[in-house]
């Protein structure tokens, strides 16, 4: 317990003009002063659509973290970000957080998962934690090929509804049903509540996202996977996730032709 001189309950402006609030408990012991400024919200820079940013939005939403978004709508905006040196490799997603300008989706996800404790409660560098973390990486990475197929589908001639687009989407569903969902169904058997290390984790969120987006393509995709169905119901009802699933949240819709056009224009391909 730390002890501080008996300041009255008041808001004091320090020289930087920020608020410092010092409180005093009834027993005369003093709590540590609160940080000067409320931590700024993470700020996401991306197109107004799912793409590679959606898994980051999911993670933040599930962790109950409010975030701001700047949407790229013109080539000029994008070029400005590059010229200002804010995109390490000239690419988005970009997330401003904790004084850093982070790019590379997996790097961002990993940082956020660690920060918001989505690798599980036990953060000690034990073998168990390390292996859980290793597992989280590969579970979450599983959803990537399916996601790639889905987003590639949108960019085929004719979009998702065109011949190639529909082919990609059908392949995504097939992979989900034959390669990935069976594994998760099996793992679910061993650990009924959570995917990794008995804690609500980043891997769980990614799996839920994958399930929901697959169901958008094929409503019966979970018909052979009762445990996954149960997982989906349970996780969809977690308050933060339930909120994110409601209309008006920052969740983005599937890519349509307008989105494809904006992205093509900005990235010039």
């Amino acid at each position: 317990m730390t002890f501080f001189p008996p300041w009255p309950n008041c808001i004091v402006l320090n020289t930087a003009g920020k608020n410092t609030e010092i409180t005093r408990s009834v027993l005369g012991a003093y709590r540590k002063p609160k940080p000067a400024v409320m931590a700024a919200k993470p700020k996401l820079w991306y197109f107004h659509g799912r793409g590679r940013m959606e898994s980051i939005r999911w993670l933040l939403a599930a962790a109950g973290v409010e975030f701001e978004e700047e949407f790229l709508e013109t080539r000029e905006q994008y070029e400005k970000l590059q010229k200002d040196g804010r995109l390490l490799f000239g690419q988005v997603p970009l997330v401003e957080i904790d004084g850093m300008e982070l790019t590379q989706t997996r790097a961002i996800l990993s940082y956020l998962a660690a920060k918001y404790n989505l690798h599980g409660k036990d953060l000690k560098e034990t073998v168990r934690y390390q292996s859980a973390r290793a597992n989280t990486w590969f579970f979450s990475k599983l959803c990537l090929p399916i996601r790639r197929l889905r987003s590639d589908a949108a960019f085929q001639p004719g979009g998702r509804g065109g011949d190639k687009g529909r082919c990609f989407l059908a392949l995504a569903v097939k992979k989900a049903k034959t390669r990935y969902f069976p594994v998760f169904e099996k793992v679910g058997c061993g650990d009924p509540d959570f995917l990794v290390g008995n804690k609500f984790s980043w891997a769980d969120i990614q799996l839920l996202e994958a399930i929901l987006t697959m169901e958008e393509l094929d409503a019966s995709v979970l018909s052979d996977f009762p445990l996954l169905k149960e997982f989906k119901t349970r996780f969809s009802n977690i308050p933060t996730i339930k909120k994110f699933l409601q209309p008006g949240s920052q969740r983005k819709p599937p890519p349509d032709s307008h989105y494809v056009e904006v992205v093509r224009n900005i990235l010039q391909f």
Partner: protein
Amino acid sequence: MAGKPKLHYFNGRGRMECIRWLLAAAGVEFEEKFIEQPEDLDKLRNDGSLMFQQVPMVEIDGMKLVQTRAILNYIATKYNLYGKDMKERALIDMYSEGVEDLGEMIMHLPLCPPDQKDAKIAQIKERTTNRYFPAFEKVLKNHGQDYLVGNKLSKADIHLVELVYYVEEMDPSLLANFPLLKGLKARVSSLPAVKKFLQPGSQRKPPMDEKNLEEAKRIFRIK
């Protein structure tokens, strides 16, 4: 006392080479069990040793780890090559991912159809000199330190130096305008464990040639 890590892959670079580099740079001895026939791969799958039916797979600390990134992250954490805190880890991840993006392009080159190869090589060279090398040169210039993150060797330095070697194999002139990258390469290469790995007779694998490509295609049943 735990045994040495055991690497399951075919006898070539592929997705296992970065893991070999990292273990070597960490001074960790490892064993390799080469997959030589498609049946060897089938056996690993049927044994349930491959969670998602894919290699690389590394047996380490009682686990059978798959997924290259998961394996790399585990090794890096275990051998203190992953920074001192979350923020350093974020930077290391960001840099490693960039290296991986370019590395992936180079790795897939042998599989590129012959009529697209020249265009692909041109694209790789362009990305190297306009996007990736400038980014890393800038990082090193901005802090003026010997290593990419936290003034200490990390997996990011090892992955980047490995990549520099591959770029040089392709075209040594690409490194011309990047003195700090050259410096990093020299510095990391002279670390005793890395120096040893760079010598003939080590477990480092040569570039993929026609024979190696045919072998990989046969084992993984790629047409």
